């Protein structure tokens, strides 16, 4: 809860030690379904990173406004609307700016609105009382952490696909256990620094 965290530490903590996915379990749904395919994983990872950075910044401003008006209890609704709006706008901007990027990213953007990681980061930002720059760094770092995790998992899953796995464990079961091992590996980082 202390606001005196160096930005550098915060950035690395949000990627490694408190990875949004492996330590806070956010963004699992699309993580499981998309990670079958490495190319899509990459696209989704990029999209999540962009959206997280932008929405966390916007939601920080919105939160200040709500607190000024004494309407904090509306924050869930407002956050989710902001996220939906940002995603929609990004979609339009990307469509104008680059067609190839739109082709690669377009299908993932609607998925992000219901990605718990995006809302989760905004809520963490609120609970931990981050300043504006901390929020932006936290959002960006969390996005990168999510990206890293999904790339690692999809790489592992391609190998697991060919391995002999018990029938009942195929698919979701083995994926969960794989993620468990990844989470254990990431806990190894937690001795280095921790930010709560």
């Amino acid at each position, binding site marked *: 809860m202390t606001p005196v965290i160096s930005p550098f530490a915060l950035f690395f903590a949000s990627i490694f030690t408190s990875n949004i996915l492996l330590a806070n379990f*956010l963004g699992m749904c699309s993580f499981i379904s998309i990670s079958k395919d490495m190319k899509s994983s990459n696209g989704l990872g990029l999209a999540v990173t962009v959206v997280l950075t932008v929405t966390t910044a916007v939601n920080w401003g919105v939160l200040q406004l709500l607190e000024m008006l004494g309407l904090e209890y509306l924050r869930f609704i407002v956050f989710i609307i902001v996220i939906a709006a940002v995603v929609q706008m990004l979609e339009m901007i990307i469509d104008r700016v680059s067609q190839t990027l739109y082709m690669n990213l377009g299908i993932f953007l609607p998925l992000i609105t219901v990605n718990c990681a995006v809302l989760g980061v905004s809520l963490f930002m609120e609970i931990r009382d981050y300043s504006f720059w901390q929020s932006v760094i936290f959002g960006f770092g969390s996005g990168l952490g999510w990206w890293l995790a999904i790339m690692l998992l999809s790489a592992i899953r391609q190998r697991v696909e060919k391995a002999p796995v018990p029938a009942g464990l195929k698919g979701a079961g083995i994926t*969960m256990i794989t993620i468990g091992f990844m989470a254990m590996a990431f806990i190894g980082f937690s001795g280095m620094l921790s930010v709560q």
Partner: protein
Amino acid sequence: MSDIDTRPGAILKNNLWTSNPIFMQVLGICSALAVTNLLTNTAIMAIGVTFVTGLSSLTVSLIKKWIPRKVRMIVQTLIIAFYVIIVDIALKAYLPEISRSLGPYVGLIITNCIIMGRAEAFAQSNDPLPSLWDGLTSGAGYMGVLMVIAVFRELLGFGTLFGYQILPANFVPWTIMVMPPSAFFLLGIVIWVGKSIMNREGAPA
């Protein structure tokens, strides 16, 4: 989807077992994993989810005629957010301790895919009462799996159940059980056991 069996018994069996939201559809596991290190938190969380799923399915079904198809997602999200705010305020007022330890995960009920999934797959095309029942039983199916995971995590991680000491005092707690990886392992094992039993029954997987 018109081939859904809408008899109450069939819905119950379907949601609790044959298409359990967690181990068959792997939906809504974000929050499932985060809160399962203590049974009390898990129970409160699951009741919250059940409440929201039931009532938002009911509401979506009641007003489905007036929602244009194009904006139905955002309308559903707003309905869900409305109920989540009620849960959040109620928790803060009556159970402030638990509300604090659940942290952001209460708010994250909004993005729990189970709720959206039920609204979209069932409430959208069925009458209000079956929808309410469908939402409640889906929540119950979610609760069942969560409780199983939480029992293991709390018992092995702290030696307690619902905060009461169960295992002898000289029991050495398994630290791993209170940390994130164990949640993934246990969920993986629960899915494994569930699917294996189902395969043996010869039900379509």
